[in-house]
């Protein structure tokens, strides 16, 4: 016969201070675990949402990032003329040949500088990238020294406020608006007219060309055709795949660090849980012996104590989830060394991360409860009951 669960729950509640300290210890471990997952998935989400499945991006052969790529003006017009490219409402092809450079800018409110991506776009870029929305100010006027700044970096770098001037090379550009882009990496960029930015930054070629396909299913065919064109020397990739690949290095690094840190923390927390469970078993030796005498099987006793330990850890897990939830949405930023520029992104505490946190807590409970539960089940009955 099984020992009722309420027995364990009551026992746990009987020792509130001890329960709470152990549970909070486990909770902190779970919170860090969820936090690391949220950091990795926030970063990854920002990069993945950057690219659209319906778009394709052309880069120079061998280039593994936008900044190391080159697409000549001539090459850009050849690609633009491809019949598989969708046509916008203005009758022009939905293709944006873009200048992508990184510029070193001063951080706002703290010393130091970092790299910011500057993207010179074609006026059709707004239809190709439908996620772009101006949230403050207005869009830049093509042909002028105006730029718009992604909202996420506007607060992180100096001179990004509306009306302020950003200097590139010898020219000042006026910030006229802030934009959002569904939380994607574009929100960490400065956008202006490619036709103005190129001479200002002393460039005579584009970096990439992104185009909307009439029918996404045509991708393979278009890719083959363009890559085989000897005039172009380019590679064509789905925009979504390209940006996802750009996130790989850092996502893996964050996950690795997260797992490394939390596994070590978990070992410490398991030791703590073991202490508590041994004490719980120790203070109830006679009680347990009585249960065994009454006919509860050692397996039932063991299960019962394992359950108690898991229950304790799950309380910790809930505390951990509650501690981790407030980080959801907090913006943080670091350099994505694959694109060599700062990417600001928000922590994303996903339901999957919370569930993973609870499972992690339960595992800690199993790890911490096993030996004490075994000890409970293996009571030497006669001696325990004889003791006063």
């Amino acid at each position, binding site marked *: 016969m099984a020992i009722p669960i309420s027995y364990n729950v009551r026992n746990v509640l009987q020792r509130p*201070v*001890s329960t709470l*300290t*152990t549970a*909070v*210890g486990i909770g*902190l*471990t779970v*919170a*860090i675990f969820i*936090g690391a997952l949220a*950091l990795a998935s926030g970063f990854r989400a920002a990069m993945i949402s950057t690219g659209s499945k319906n778009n394709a991006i052309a880069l*120079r*052969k*061998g*280039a*593994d*990032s936008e*900044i*190391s790529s080159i697409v000549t003006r001539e090459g850009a017009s050849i690609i633009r003329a491809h019949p598989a490219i969708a046509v916008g409402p203005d009758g022009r092809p939905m293709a944006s040949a873009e200048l992508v*450079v*990184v*510029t*070193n800018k001063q*951080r706002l409110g703290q*010393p*130091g*500088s*970092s*790299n910011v991506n500057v993207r010179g776009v074609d006026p059709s870029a707004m239809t190709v990238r439908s996620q772009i929305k101006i949230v403050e100010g207005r869009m830049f006027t093509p042909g002028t020294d105006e730029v718009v700044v992604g909202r996420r970096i506007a607060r992180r770098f100096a001179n990004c406020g509306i009306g302020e001037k950003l200097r*590139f*090379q*010898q020219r000042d550009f006026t910030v006229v608006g802030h934009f959002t882009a569904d939380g994607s990496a574009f929100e960490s960029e400065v956008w202006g007219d490619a036709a103005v930015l190129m001479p200002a*930054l*002393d460039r005579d070629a584009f970096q990439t060309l992104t185009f909307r396909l009439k029918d996404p299913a045509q991708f393979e065919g278009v890719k083959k055709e363009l890559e085989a064109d000897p005039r172009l020397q380019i590679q064509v990739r789905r925009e979504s795949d390209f940006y996802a690949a750009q996130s790989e290095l850092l996502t893996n690094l964050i996950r690795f660090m997260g797992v490394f*840190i939390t596994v*070590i*923390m978990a*070992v*410490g*927390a398991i*030791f*703590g849980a*073991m*202490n*508590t469970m*041994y*004490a719980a078993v120790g203070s109830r030796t006679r009680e347990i012996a009585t249960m065994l005498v009454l006919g509860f099987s050692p397996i039932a006793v063991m299960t019962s104590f394992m359950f108690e330990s898991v229950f304790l850890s799950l309380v910790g897990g809930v505390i951990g989830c509650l501690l981790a939830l407030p980080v959801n949405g907090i913006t*943080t*930023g*670091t*350099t994505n*060394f694959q694109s*060599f520029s*700062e990417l600001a992104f928000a922590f994303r505490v996903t339901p999957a991360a919370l569930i993973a946190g609870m499972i992690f807590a339960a595992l800690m409970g199993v790890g911490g409860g096993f030996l004490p539960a075994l000890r409970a089940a293996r009571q030497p009955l006669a001696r325990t009951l004889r003791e006063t």
Partner: protein
Amino acid sequence: MNLLSLVLVNLGRNKRRTILTLLSVTVALFLFCTLGGVLDTLQESIKFGSETRLVTRNAISLIFPLPLTYRGRLEAVPGVKQVAVQNWFGGRDPKDERNWYAQFGVDENFYSIYANDMEIVAASPPQTPMEVPAGIVPQLQTYFAEQNACVVGQKLLEKNGWKLGQTIYVAGTIYPGNWPFTIRAVYHAKKKSFGEETMFFHWKYLEQKGMHGQGQVGVYVLDLNQPERAADIARQVDALYENSAAATRTESEQAFQAGFVSMYGNIPFVLRVIGLAVVFAILLVAANTMMMAFRERTSEIGVLKTLGFEDGTIFRIVLAEAALITVGGGVAGALLAKWALESSGFNFGGFLPPMTVYWSTVLTGIAIAAVLGAVSGLIPAVRASRLKIVDALRRVE
């Protein structure tokens, strides 16, 4: 009776609990010092830079080059002894994308400027005796005789199982194509922070094959003979090109390296927060243990008091017990972190210098452990000292 031995005997009473608590503190301090070590390593990467050398780059950002024509004028700036050219190559291993290492195209001055940071430990013997440029070790003869020769770090050589004289291939990402390089010399980093996983090759080769002779330079390294005037010289250099097509930004090599660390953005802050959480979590474990130990021994404390132990002494005994556990665990964890990380040679794939844990971090860790002990032992110690003999002895277990 000796108080210390009383504390030790108490610790030995519930050995399992003592060991479990000790281990959890060890683990926590190991982690704390590891996180601190990552920050230390970032700090170490700044240290590589010398205050007496300047780096001149394009004012917009590193990805914009500078014209080779600047070189002559830079050399003429008073206080500048020598100017070297250094260009990021950004290639990757064509066979294994994950096998990343840094490659730089450099000119001959680079080897004399950095003579104190690296030394050539192996080199291919020259086919025919050759002159090497002034100020450069004679081992580099063969390297200077061949256009596509390269010098690699000892660790890089060992990691990839390369041999001197072997031809390796690098796929260019910025400069397209498959680039063959012949390993003609191996260097050892005299300063740990210089790193041993980099490859250097002729900038001239890069310029001819990769830039079609356009003469563009990633950065200039300026070796000074009046290092005390470094800030002055930097201003002077930048003033030269203030209104030109490629404006420059000149800073000390150390500031240049610090710029990379600044690029990590919020990551160091995140690591600090995690470090604090770890410490707090373990504080709870330790405090819980001390409370348990105290509760178990209530009547015993009553006996001690009956025997004439004063409240203050009891307070100290309980506190000492807590401190011994946490400081013991702290010393073990902090030293383990220093030893394990530094001997592992882990270096974030060559991105940063080998992992370093400063002694100051180790000491901070141990100090934190001591504070942990004091805080976790405080409540039980206060309770123990205030315990009335009657209450303590009345309790029945």
